[in-house]
């Protein structure tokens, strides 16, 4: 006898709304006249995100919190809903950046026609006709829906489905840059191939874990692992699933795609993706490791510790030698993954400040900083589009003090200086790890922070202490949407550094992950 699972629409509608908006976007793309598409897509996407955000807040405040639905496949708990809200917030900024058309003579940063090969007459025709790729909005919405599901997946199958739903649109979006298309397409191919491998590995691990526990539910796997923790099937499964998630977050040694994709993707995509993917992936990773593999901590903590150490050191050291801003920020994102993994190692506490709270706060801080930083990268332009080369950023503090100042705020936050959100974030992950006795990892984290400070500060030095070079990049005045994204991110970065109390309290009240 087969019974259909009950689904609590009261708690799931924000996710369904976002996915619905994505489908509606496809319909608009098919039927609306070309001239109307841009406005229709942008307003549809932003309205959908705002409504979903409001819904997520309502769910978080409502009675549905702490329940599971769909036969345990989806779990509505505090950390899950918090990270959903964060994904939505960042994605709202992402839509604003996607819709930027003032920087590049009235067209968006996306290729006019993806099917037209670079350098062919077809491409020229597309750009002469001023074609725009408005499919990016439904693609983005699918990814956002996938990320939201990823944050609240309560069983293995849902985890995998959500992973694919969020990943596939990202591969496509990476390859859609209007300028430097070959670079962009190469990055997309690299991202896709490596992503497909990692999905396969993840799926293999998932199958092994299922083989061990005989159930898909994370909570039941957790119970089974407590009874028989030393099963090779389980351990191998944990390892393979970890590889899949570490790939998504860009941890060493699965990081090699990060700088290339960050550099190759259209900058608004990089801005949004670097923040949102990391939030979703870490939310899922926390849940998987704490709920399903919580009793196996003695086994995975040392391994993740080694990965964290390598990730921090390599990310920070490689960032120093970069000459391109986007690549530098890409390696810095790798280093930040390492800091987040350090937080993952700590003690889990539902009632006091522990790993869950620390990692989620770090994600908040990093999300705003990276969104804002890449938004600024998109403003600096030369004759051939964006200017990534570091030496052409020299003297920006003289010519555009506000832009350089905001960028400095983001860099200082990433470097973890007090009075910025990054500092509280860094303090939190270090404190969580140290509470669990992980002092060697924290020691390495401090060393890599010092290394990382060097390239953040060097960038600030370049902007403020050097004279502008002859071929310095010019700052193009953006539309209000981009300006708002930068301003809000900078404001949030400082505010969360000075008054982190409300967000910390929210995280404390949110409780822990449930099965």
């Amino acid at each position, binding site marked *: 006898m087969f019974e259909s699972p009950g689904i609590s629409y009261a708690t799931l509608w924000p996710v369904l709304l976002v996915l619905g908006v994505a489908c509606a976007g496809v319909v608009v793309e098919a039927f609306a006249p070309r001239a109307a598409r841009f406005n229709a897509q942008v307003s549809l996407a932003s309205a959908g995100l705002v409504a979903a955000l409001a819904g997520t807040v309502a769910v978080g405040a409502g009675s549905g919190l702490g329940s599971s639905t769909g036969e345990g496949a989806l779990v509505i708990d505090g950390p899950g809903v918090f990270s959903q809200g964060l994904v939505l917030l960042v994605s709202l900024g992402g839509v604003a950046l996607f819709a930027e058309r003032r920087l590049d003579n009235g067209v968006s940063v996306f290729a006019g026609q993806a099917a037209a090969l670079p350098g062919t007459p077809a491409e020229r025709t597309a750009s002469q006709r001023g074609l725009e790729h408005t499919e990016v909005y439904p693609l983005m919405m699918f990814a956002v829906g996938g990320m939201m599901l990823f944050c609240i997946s309560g069983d293995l199958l849902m985890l995998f489905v959500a992973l694919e739903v969020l990943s596939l649109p990202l591969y496509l979006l990476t390859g859609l840059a209007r300028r430097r298309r070959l670079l962009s397409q190469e990055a997309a191919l690299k991202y896709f191939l490596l992503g497909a491998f990692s999905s396969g590995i993840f799926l293999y691990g998932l199958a092994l874990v299922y083989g061990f526990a005989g159930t898909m539910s994370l909570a039941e796997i957790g119970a089974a692992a407590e009874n028989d923790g030393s099963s090779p099937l389980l351990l191998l499964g944990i390892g393979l699933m970890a590889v899949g998630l570490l790939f998504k977050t860009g941890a060493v040694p699965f990081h090699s795609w990060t700088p290339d994709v960050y550099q190759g993707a259209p900058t608004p995509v990089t801005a949004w993706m670097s923040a949102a993917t990391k939030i979703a992936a870490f939310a899922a990773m926390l849940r998987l490791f704490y709920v399903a593999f919580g009793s196996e901590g003695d086994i995975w903590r040392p391994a993740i510790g080694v990965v964290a150490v390598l990730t921090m050191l390599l990310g920070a050291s490689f960032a120093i030698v970069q000459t391109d801003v986007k690549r530098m920020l890409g390696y810095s994102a790798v280093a930040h993954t390492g800091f987040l993994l350090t937080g993952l190692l700590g003690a889990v506490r539902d009632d*006091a*400040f522990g790993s869950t*709270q620390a990692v989620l706060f770090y994600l908040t801080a990093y999300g705003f900083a990276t969104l804002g930083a890449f938004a600024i990268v998109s403003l600096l332009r030369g004759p051939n589009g964006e200017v990534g080369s570091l030496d052409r950023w020299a003297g920006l503090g003289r010519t555009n003090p506000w832009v350089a100042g905001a960028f400095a705020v983001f860099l*200082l936050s990433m*470097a*973890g*200086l*007090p*009075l910025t959100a990054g*500092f*509280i974030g*860094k*303090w939190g992950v*270090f*404190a969580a790890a*140290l*509470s669990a006795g992980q002092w060697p990892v*924290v*020691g390495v984290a*401090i060393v890599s*922070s*010092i290394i990382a*400070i*060097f390239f953040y*500060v*060097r960038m600030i*030095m370049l902007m*403020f*202490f*050097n004279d502008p070079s002859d071929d310095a990049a010019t700052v193009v005045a953006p539309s209000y949407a981009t300006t708002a994204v930068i301003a809000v991110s900078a404001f949030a970065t400082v505010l969360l550094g000075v008054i*982190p*109390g409300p967000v*910390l*309290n929210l*995280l*404390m009240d949110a409780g822990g992950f449930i099965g």
Partner: protein
Amino acid sequence: MLSILVLIPFAGALITAVMPARPKLWAFGFALATLLVGIVTMFTAPDTDLAWMKPLGVHWALELDGFGKLMVLLTVVLVPLVMVAAVKDHDKRWYAWALALEAFGLLTFLAADLFVFYIAFEATLIPAYFMIGQHGGPKRAKAALKFLMFQLGGGLVLLGALIGFFVVSSEAGTPSYLISDLAQLDIGTTAQRWIFVAMFIAFAVKAPLFPVHTWLADTTEQATPATSVLLVCILDKIGTFGMIRLCLGLVPEASAWATPVVVVLALISIVYGAVLAIGQDDLLRLIGLTSLSHFGLITLGIFAATREGLVGSILYMVNHGVATAAMFLIAGFLISRKGTASISSMRGLEKATPVLAGTFLVAGLATAGLPGLSQFVSEIMVLISAFDYHWLIGVIAVTAIVLAAIYVLWAYQRIFTGPAESSPRPVKDLDRREVGVLVPLLVALLFFGFVPGPLISAASPVVEPLVNVIQAGE
């Protein structure tokens, strides 16, 4: 009231940064307002204690004891003087940063919560970094980077100690960062030693102490003299301030454990700094290196941990601030006349600039510890405690006085005596503005040289409990 003391210069920094007309005057006005409020707080200032980041156990807690009062007074007096002295060398950015630096500096001296202390400790670096990097010598960007890397490195190590305290504190119950709460914690020996090492590294970089002093000479050489005053005379005091308040105050047993090593490092700083200073040709670098020697003495006094030593060190911090500020400013005036800081390119200036020469000599002899000038009293107290600790340590430390006499008098001789050079452009003596800046400093040097009582009575009550704890531990 104490919050206002911090907020005034901070607001001043923001206003100065955006004010289109006469920003320097605004900045000076805010510095004066801070001075006034600072003096008022000497007499009446209720402690502040508000919850700030509750989950982390952080309180916005400020309080002012005798030690804090001396440091606050030093800060609020020096900032407006420096602003007047340096009016020609800087634009409004520097003035805004100077006020921001003052705000965060005051916050470190007022903080009754370790987290607040740390935030202010690190936040001072941002204005300092921009002040070094935007004004000064040709290699200033490099010097600023070196400064920041050393300081932030130390700061991150201190963050380790901060987290260590959080872990211990939350294991004992509700986490709290109040220094008074932390002092009650029962910390295991190993943890205490690690925490001490982390804190001491941070403060040694800040202070600065051999072997983490190398940023000092480069920074003072490249930064403008006014920036150096704020850095060396105010900011670096946070290092020795932290040693007393946090190392001795929170982990006394570990401090006693580490004393032999610290004393050796301090002795090396004393002698090495003085010897390097003697050989310097760059006047600003020379003054920077003399501070290395002086900070060695202060550290020695702190870790000898007798009553005289601690009081002497606290006094030394104030007196060194005044005397070295005078030295830097006079050097600045001299350099603005000659266009170079190279001692070998100056000679025989005594005739043309008798006032400049006179003030240089007075301030210089004060740093060399001449009796009757303020530094003498503190130096004697520190040296007595050094002899108490071990006679050999005392003997080595005393060489500092001889070496100091050499570097001061030799520099004076090279710059001011001898035949005057036949310069096409005559060097003018100090004008009224410059004399006005120096007079309060020199008066303070003389006054506290003869009447050190007020300083001693301010510092003594702070020292008493520390000495008791340390002697109980031994």
